[in-house]
């Protein structure tokens, strides 16, 4: 995808010039940095003063060549933040609203209606009015509606930001399924690091309308320029793990990471052998230079310091402990422990610091 656009906004100008080839791309940045504007421009809902948009060799917009396809012809599915379901139509009519184009477009693989309903678990909602479904269900309906228009690209605007949606209803697992089942490229707007790390294979960091850095999420989010953006963000480690055993009495489950390292996490009723993702904040990991004894934390992992990035009195440590962990410390802690690259250390993580995503 080639994306160059200049859009004057009230407080700053949106100026992006980049190209990327990725399945799931995250536009990452604080609120009000122009991310939604950028999505609107890609979808053709907003005028671009100057620029080009090209997807898979197809030009959607070019100010130089005077090309400006209307939204109808762009083949871009858009799930806006609020879902934007048509309130006067039933769930069924909402879902099928764009399916006509999908049926005769033939530009992407056939995606059956029932298949999409199954994957998103919304079949039972079909005959309901959209005013009688929950926030999480509404998001899935909006997602199904966009997918069934068989878009070449799916735009998702902060689907996890809606605060009224309970943890259980989070759309994240469904997005992962959509990614795996339908192979539609996605652009995903968020201001949450965890979401970037969980879903995306490429990230564009945007601030005040400018592209700050881009790359593979794990690397891009660790650069100095990125850390400066994350100052007041939760910097989180996202780990993929398999359940081994769970005990309700002990209040914990044992999981195994891809590297073979085993961890204790809060009790979950998930079946053994099921795969899931955990988050642990970079601020919730302790570092020790000797193996500690007599502590309550159940996870003590030996590892080696991979790198130290300093910024504004803070230091971001990467530690290889089977998987890679990011730990945020103060500069004084780094000095006191005389931390440096290749130093063997121990990571100490409380069971309850892990959070099931």
């Amino acid at each position, binding site marked *: 995808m080639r994306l160059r656009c200049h859009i004057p906004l009230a407080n700053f100008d949106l100026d992006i010039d980049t190209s990327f080839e990725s399945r799931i791309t995250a536009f990452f940045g604080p609120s009000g940095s122009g991310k939604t504007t950028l999505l609107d421009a890609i979808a*053709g*809902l907003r005028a671009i003063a100057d620029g080009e948009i090209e997807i898979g060799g197809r030009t959607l917009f070019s100010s130089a060549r005077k090309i400006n396809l209307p939204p109808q012809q762009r083949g871009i599915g858009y799930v806006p933040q*609020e879902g934007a379901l*048509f309130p*006067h139509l039933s769930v069924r009519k909402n879902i099928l609203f*764009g399916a006509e*184009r999908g049926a005769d477009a033939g530009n992407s693989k056939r995606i059956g209606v029932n298949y999409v309903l199954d994957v998103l678990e919304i079949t039972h909602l079909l005959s309901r009015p959209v005013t009688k479904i929950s926030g999480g269900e509404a998001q899935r309906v909006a997602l199904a*509606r*966009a997918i069934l*228009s068989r878009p070449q690209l799916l735009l998702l605007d902060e689907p996890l930001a809606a605060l009224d949606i309970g943890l259980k209803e989070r759309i994240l697992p469904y997005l992962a399924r959509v990614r795996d089942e339908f192979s539609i490229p996605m652009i995903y707007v968020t201001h949450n690091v965890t979401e970037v790390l969980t879903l995306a294979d490429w990230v564009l960091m945007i601030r005040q309308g400018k592209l700050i850095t881009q790359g593979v999420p794990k690397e891009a989010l660790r650069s100095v320029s990125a850390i400066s953006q994350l100052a007041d963000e939760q910097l989180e480690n996202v780990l993929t793990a398999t359940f081994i055993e769970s005990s309700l009495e002990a209040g914990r489950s044992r999981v195994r990471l891809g590297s073979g390292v085993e961890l204790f996490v809060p009790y979950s009723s998930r079946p053994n052998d099921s795969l899931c993702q955990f988050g642990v904040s970079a601020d919730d990991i302790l570092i020790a230079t000797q193996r500690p004894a007599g502590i309550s934390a159940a996870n003590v992992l030996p590892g080696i310091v991979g790198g130290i990035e300093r910024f504004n009195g803070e230091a971001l440590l990467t530690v290889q402990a089977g998987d890679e962990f990011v730990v945020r410390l103060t500069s004084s802690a780094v000095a006191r422990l005389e931390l440096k690259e290749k130093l063997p250390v121990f990571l100490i993580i409380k069971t309850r610091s892990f959070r099931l995503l």
Partner: protein
Amino acid sequence: MIFSPETWQITIFSLAVGVASTLLILPFGIVLAWLFARKEWPLKSAIETVVLLPLVMPPVSTGLVLLKIFGRRSPLGQWLYERGIEIVFNWKGVLIAMSVMSFPLLVRSVRTSFTEVNLRLEQIAATLGASPLRIFFVVTIPLAYKGIVAGALLAFSRALGEFGATILLAGNIPGQTQTLSLAIYNFVQLGKDPEAYVLLGITVALAFMFVWSSEWLLRTGKKL
């Protein structure tokens, strides 16, 4: 039966021409209101002002303007007359006067209901491949329909109450152009107060019914 045949005739004539005028202006009003609410075009504010003028101008002045436009000595009146159509001093004059006088109310009310339709819904419909025409009929109109119906009711009530423009353009001819309002005026002039009171009762009942249902629609419409 307290209604005389004359009372019936006047009431039915008023209602019939009122309904006809509302149906006549409805399609134009909806399209114009949409253009005002959703599009930017040259002279938009000037045209908006002209459309709203009959709302604030003395109705008699509007009537005089209409008389000049449709009178047989005007180019338009002449052109219509040659084709066998006469507007002035018959029911068509009543129709035109009612239409022009109630048009601004319709447009204002419908325009407001269009601006209350979430633009995002129309945009998303476009990304789903819906043509502008489909968006208009499947998204915009259904979401604004309560405002449209309320506006039509309001316009209809205004049409029934029309007096000044009607008397100038259509005259006050019993059995031909006499509406409820004109008849009340007539009866009072002739000292036939009881007859005037019967008609007064009818107008109050009708006005109450229409304004009340219009307000009710707008109230419940907000919840959507």
